[in-house]
């Protein structure tokens, strides 16, 4: 008799014969128990036949039992202790029967989704538009002041495209005027620099603003995010650690680290290019007083606190005490403000720890157009009226086709003026509603039948196959039938 058994050359552990005998007994018992079921067979021999047949499999022989793998012999009873069920765990997780949420994007489900999104977004957009509308903002571009503004005592109107304003009043009359003059300015307490262009802007605010009122300068086309620029600073130096000239030279300030054996303090491209226009607080020139005459009143905006992040304070420290001023130099762009272009006791290096404007500058902007807070007034409203602002305009922007502007603005919960936000919300919401409507209409006119058979790919294939004649079974396209 051919036995289907392992042609397995490996010697197998011989099982104890006693164990085998017991198994056999168990098995025999089972077999007898099973016998009555065969009673249906009328043949008198069939009972024994069943029995014999079952017994037919294991046969005696030397070494025979060894070579039979237990799984090969279906009649061999399984060893109850040794063999445990290898059935995989029947849990919902293992068997991938976890309850699932399986929505289907049918026309019926898509249309409501669009409408819901639309209905949610439209009012949000409205609210945002309203919030933006409450912001009063005035923006004056004075980049060309040094060249285009009249160098007289009479202010001339500025080109209107330099002015942007948004107030509640329609078409507000800003009446921005400008002029320039050369002036002397005293830097750092004692050093006087002569012939600095001072730009005086005059404008009228139609409404009271704020509080708070924020004063920004805004630069365009200025790449504070330039790869080399953005990392060109030396944190230890800024922090106020004592650093050697060599350390500065090796630092990330490259390529602006030092001049000869003198290190720039602070080194790096960012510090060097710090925005150095100086803005005075706006002065209300037509403040109605008790008397008929109008008086000037400075709307004081402070610029030494609360304009930089609190956390930035930790980054900047003073020059370590006892630093030899001969070992450091102001960055090239700063040198104009220092006598002989050097630090000295008279014109000491800047106190970075308290120089919030420096901190603001050092926090590099993400985009080439940016606004940086210069000063603010959180307590008083900026009354409607005509203001003068004096600007020491030293920062060159026209060279690189950039602009600089002042921005005076109030705030809303959303920050500054940002009408697009609201508009976009409305647009997205509106788009959804339109889409929803389109879907509804097309669905009503020409509904796609759910589960339409013509879409089933094998039908398509079989159609093709039928057309092209030969090709065997309908769905054989990918099995080499289309072999060239």
């Amino acid at each position: 008799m051919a036995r289907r058994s392992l042609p397995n050359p490996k010697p197998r552990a011989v099982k104890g014969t006693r164990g085998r005998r017991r198994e056999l007994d168990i098995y025999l018992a089972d077999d007898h128990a099973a016998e009555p079921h065969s009673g249906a067979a009328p043949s008198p021999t069939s009972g024994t036949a069943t029995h014999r047949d079952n017994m037919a499999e294991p046969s005696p022989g030397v070494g025979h039992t060894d070579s039979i793998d237990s799984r090969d012999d279906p009649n061999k009873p399984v060893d109850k202790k040794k063999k445990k069920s290898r059935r995989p765990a029947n849990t919902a997780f293992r068997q991938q029967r976890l309850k699932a949420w399986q929505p289907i994007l049918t026309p019926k489900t898509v249309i409501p989704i669009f409408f819901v999104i639309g209905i949610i977004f439209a009012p949000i957009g409205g609210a945002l538009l309203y919030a933006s509308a409450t912001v009063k903002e005035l923006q004056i571009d004075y980049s060309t002041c040094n060249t285009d503004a009249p160098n007289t005592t009479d202010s001339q109107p500025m080109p209107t495209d330099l002015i942007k304003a948004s107030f509640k009043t329609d078409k507000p009359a800003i009446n921005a005027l400008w002029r320039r003059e050369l002036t002397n300015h005293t830097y750092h307490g004692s050093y006087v620099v002569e012939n600095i262009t001072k730009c005086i802007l005059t404008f009228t605010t139609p409404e009271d603003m704020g509080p708070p009122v924020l004063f920004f300068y805004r630069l365009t086309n200025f790449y504070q995010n330039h790869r080399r620029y953005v990392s060109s600073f030396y944190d230890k130096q800024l922090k106020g650690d004592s650093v050697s000239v060599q350390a500065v030279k090796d630092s990330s300030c490259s390529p602006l680290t030092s001049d000869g054996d003198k290190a720039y303090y602070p080194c790096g491209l960012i510090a060097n290019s710090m925005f150095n226009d100086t803005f005075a607080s706006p002065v209300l020139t037509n403040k109605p007083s008790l008397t008929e005459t109008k008086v000037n009143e400075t709307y004081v905006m402070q610029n030494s606190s609360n304009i930089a992040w609190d956390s930035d304070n930790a980054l900047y420290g003073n020059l370590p005490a006892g630093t030899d001023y001969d070992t450091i130099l102001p960055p090239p762009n700063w040198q104009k403000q220092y006598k002989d272009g050097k630090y000295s006791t008279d014109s000491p290096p800047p106190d970075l720890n308290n120089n919030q404007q420096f901190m603001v500058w050092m926090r590099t902007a993400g985009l080439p157009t940016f606004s940086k807070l210069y000063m603010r007034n959180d307590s008083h409203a900026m009354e409607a009226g005509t203001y003068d602002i004096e600007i020491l305009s030293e920062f060159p922007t026209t060279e690189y086709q950039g602009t600089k502007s002042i921005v005076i603005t109030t705030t809303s919960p959303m920050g500054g003026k940002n009408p697009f936000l609201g508009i976009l919300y409305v647009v997205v919401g509106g788009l959804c509603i339109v889409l929803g409507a389109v879907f509804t209409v097309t669905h009503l006119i020409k509904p796609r039948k759910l589960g339409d058979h013509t879409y089933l790919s094998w039908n398509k294939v079989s159609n093709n196959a039928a057309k092209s004649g030969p090709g065997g079974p309908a769905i054989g396209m990918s099995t080499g039938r289309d072999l060239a």
Partner: protein
Amino acid sequence: MDRRHVPVASTSSHGGKSRAHHLEHVRTSSGASRFVRGHKQQPSVSVTSTDEPRFNLDNYRSWARRQRKRARENTWARLENAFNACYQKWIIERLLRQYPLPPSKDGRHIPLTYGHVRETPLKDDRTGSTKPFCSNFIRSSRYTVWSFLPKQLYFQFSKLANFYFLIIAILQAIPGLSTTGTYTTIATLIPFIAISMAKEGYDDYRRYQLDKRENRSMVSVLDPKHTASGKLKGKKRRENADVEMSMAELDDFNSPANVWSKMQWQDLRVGDIVRLYRDESLPADIVLLHATGPEGVAYIETMALDGETNLKSKQACPLLAKRCDSLAKLRACNAQVVSEDPNIDLYSYEGRVTVDNETMPLTLNEVVYRGSILRNTTHATGLVINTGEECKIRMNANKEIRAKMPAMQRKINHIVLFLVAFVAFLAVGMTTANEVWKSRYLHKGWYLKAVSVKEILIGYIIMFNTLIPLSLIVSLEIIKLGQLFLLQDVEMYDAESNTPMVANTTTILENLGQVSYVFSDKTGTLTENKMRFRKLSVAGTAWLHDMDVKRDDLERERRLQLIKGKGKSNNVTSTMSVESASTEPIKTPLINHAKSFVTKQTSTTWTSTGRPSHAQPELNTEKLLLYVYQKPDTAFSKKAKQFLLCVALCHTCLPETKADGTVEFQAASPDELALVKAAQDLGYLLVDRATQSVTLQVKGPESGLDLNETYEVLDVVEFSSKRKRMSIVIRMPDGRICVFCKGADSMILPRLKLAHLAMQKASDISRKATLRKSVEATRALHRRSMQAQHSLDIVRAASSKQHGFRGVNAPTRSSVVSDAVDSWLDHREHDDLDEPGHEEVYQSPMVMSPASFGHDHELDGMIDESLASNDGAIFERCFQHIDDFASEGLRTLLFAYRYMEDKEYASWRKTYQEATTCLVDRQQRIEEAGELIERDFDLAGATAIEDKLQAGVPETIDKLRRASIKVWMLTGDKRETAINIAHSARICKPFSELYVLDALKGELQESMVSTLIEIGRGMVAHSVVVVDGHTLSIIEEDETLKAIFFDLVVRADSVICCRASPSQKANLVKCIRDTVPSSLTLAIGDGANDIAMIQASHVGIGISGREGLQAARISDYSIAQFRFLQRLLFVHGRWNYLRTGKYVLATFWKEMVFYMAQAQFQRWNGWTGTSLFESASLAVFNTLFTSLCVILPGIFEKDLDAATLLAVPELYTYGQRNEAFNYKKYIAWNVMAIIESIIIYTIVHCLYGDSSHDLFAFGQLVFTVVVIFINTKLFVLEMHHKTTVTLIGWLLMVGGWFVWNLFISGSGVMKHTAGPYPVKDNFTHGFGRHALWWVTGFLALAAVVVFELCVTALRRVYFPKDQDLWQEIEHLGAGKVLEEHAATGDVERGGATQAQAGEGVKLGKIDSGGTVASA
């Protein structure tokens, strides 16, 4: 050359008139000959008549030549070949001095020396007798300790992605170029590669261990000087000594001194004389010297070699046999064996033996190969001729096993390549932009300093390199582990053999979803290799033998009980789930209680799996016995008894009476065993078979007592594959001499007394059968053309209904859908099967029996006694029955007998004796002698044996076919057997056209070409090509034949390959891989002979738990039952394919979204390479915030229910058409990514950019939107199967992002810094408190989600895919129906269900679903 005239090869691909015209006149000849059909499944190959103009094959040849040339001219292949040649020449030959061995002059000369070889090993002639023969040590491990590292490093870095990351890592390590750290890439890469290498190393170590076990198996070798025992140490030696003693006792050589030593296989040498005991495996190829079987026959099981289940009888060459039957003789024997050089051919052997100047040839009949097992023979002695790697089985083994790669890998590699190019393009483009910007701006920008081109370029390369994330590979491994974990399906657990599905590899999980060819072994894979006597036809009446149907059921039941009882005793959880089973619905489509109970009622029915609709005789053999007992003297009863006697006597089985009185049989083939058992069932128990007699225990006709009758066996003319019959000459108890013969109908038929009448009837029947077949075929063709119309109309009806009611009447709607789906699926399932109604018309009238057989005395009506004496009618009926049996896939045998005169016998006896003792052409002369008495037979009857298929095989094959998978059967078995099984397994349909390619039957090329043309015409309903190993080897040698052959077989619906050697099987698989590169092949088998095929295929499946473990061990996946293939492919394969595809797409997509934002930002920083994102967050983007969103869908996604996938196998084509991951899809996802990235960046840029205080806040907002969007899209929009896992994943990822922000902002990990990314406190105190930041983010998110939703909705609603439609159908409530249909193929309709149900009833509960389902 005009393309249209490229003839046959391209005919079916170039449609059009010219071909039709060309084919038409060929058809006339082939069509006619096709209808002349052999009696059974005879080859119906149309042999082209000679007057037909010869096909002009020149064109074909040139086509083939071009094909070959093209293959050769592949540059890469050429390079590789050149490299290999160089390697061979320089490294192997020059350096290692290993030359390929030249063939020897005239084979290896092996002297038969008495143990002499143990002292001086023989030298190999081929080395000029300088070196000994190769040792018997085998090595299947791929690496050695030394070659492991270099080979593995090469292998690892030949993976494109790994190589890419290596380059990036090196770039990163060059100081000053990287902006993202120095060792980040290499630090991730090294552990990952180390793990992969360790895994490979472990696998190889396991192989090494297995080799070691095999190499150290023991065998006893003639070793008079005991050279071997010194090598064994200590305890082992003692044990061996014990064994030795017992062996010595058994030793019939009766030698006083024990000359046999036990030694390890690996120490065996050529020339050794080995001694084998029953059931031992052969350690090497040997020439048989002596065996103790009857007449010196040794029975050999060669299943591991060729898959054949028959035991083969091998006999020592008479020259040797008489000189080697004792030790003394052996010692004196001075023989020399000359053996052919080692080669791969399993089916031929040439050699000779010379003893005392007498030479005889050695053939296959005297040689036993390694891997076979000695059966039913106590001892055998042999001379080792081939050892180790030179054994036939090792030569056949697949040596160069390439590591299997998922098919998707190729595409992934292409995309990686594309992305590398894309990164380079981005980098170069942006560097150029930077140059332009520099020239326009920088010289004016007094505050800036230029960055060098080199830095910019490499900076960009490093910035965008993560477009191909390293996590792609790492996470891929993770999801595959997860998929593997979920692959442990209870429904693929076989309770009977307690075998779960086992996965040996994770790499190619997704390949399971793309298979288009299944190469299946037959024995043990499709069949259980249990032969069951199923039907018999005697005196014109067909009877069903169902006793063993019941017996099988009982046995199965009992075994299941055993396992279950045990399961309960040691598994508490399972008991608990038993209790809860009643409350919680078990979601398993495999259970179908209702059906089970129904089948239980009619437990004795048996349906053919090949033709389930075929009417079955209602008479069973119990009634036959009853009738014979009641009316023993009627003509019918006499014939029946005579027939049963034939069955009981005409065989070569040996009974063994056991201690408890039961009788066990030893048979050379399971068929014979089945026959003998059937005879036993029918009252003829074989109790003894001495050498010259047969003793039968017969039920006495009246008393019912057992009578022993002894029949003297005079002669046996044995079965051979050429004769296809065996005869036995018996002296009956009454003294008459009778010759009984059984054999194939085509052999018996011409030898009948009334041969002429019989032939006439047979051709009548065959004409009818042909008619029926052609009608069926026409109908099948018609059905196929109707298929399109008859599709899912019903669903349309249902859905329109749904729209009509608008869900007002929900239950109605769902039931309408269910009904619709139900009928549609019914239609598809029975597509290729005939409705029973049509059947009767074309069948000869069966005996229509009275409706009921309630009482015994009604038996009269059921037998037509008049028929029993009408020979013509008997013939007609009998042949009709045989034809029916055969088409049901049963193996038929005809029995015939003849009484002969003593005189006649005496004269014949003389001739026969001469033949058997003759030394030259013995076989032929025996055959001739046999012919002499095998004539003028009376027909006794016919039997039909079922080669029992495994449960659910035909249904599975049907479903595989519906899934557009071609099923090929490659077997080592005989052609007839193979065709029979093909029928019962429904690889062949009743109306299939079989094209048998046989090199022995004339022009191979012409028959192939004509077949090709016929198939090409498309008028063949179902074509099956049958080819055998011999023909295949001829085809393989000729390039032109090969080209035509593969062109033919890919067009045929199925291919059956019989008598194929393991290497041929593997070759066939390889050739299909080459011929149809787009296809994915799956090989499934159970034995050692399938290993090569399993390794050669894309996916190798082993059947475990039955035959042996070799295949299961070496395979990629092993399952216990063929039918689990359904679940493995349709459900898990598809899911895993879908998951992996989605994972890859999603991974590339998310990187694209993320880095495109980065790219857009570059425009705003002068194209200098400043990163939009802060580097710490950037570094963990892939791992912390967007890992689960690709991994979890990669593990848990299910687009459709398992039930749907099983019920609608057509959905499987999804993977075959590469729909989850293809270039089109990749591009579509990328386009979406770019658009979405633009939407996100633009919104954030416009609304927040100016207002942001620093780059960090701005970048973080983009980052936030991207992270939430990626997670939302992948978890919510893309994942269909949203479970709590999904929710948790989403929360972890999105929550993780905010936790991360809080962490870097609030904790002390990040120090305060200046620069672009002031992280510290920024989220907690800075932008995190700005409403604008949040509101902008929300808007950007909403905008992309709406966009995504809109696109998806449009696509789904207006361009739905198959799975979308089925999702809708599932949604509409067709789940129940789908489950039912999923179950139809899975549960065996007959016995298995019954047994299950019976058990279920008895136990009264279900062991938590799985066990019941798996039967």
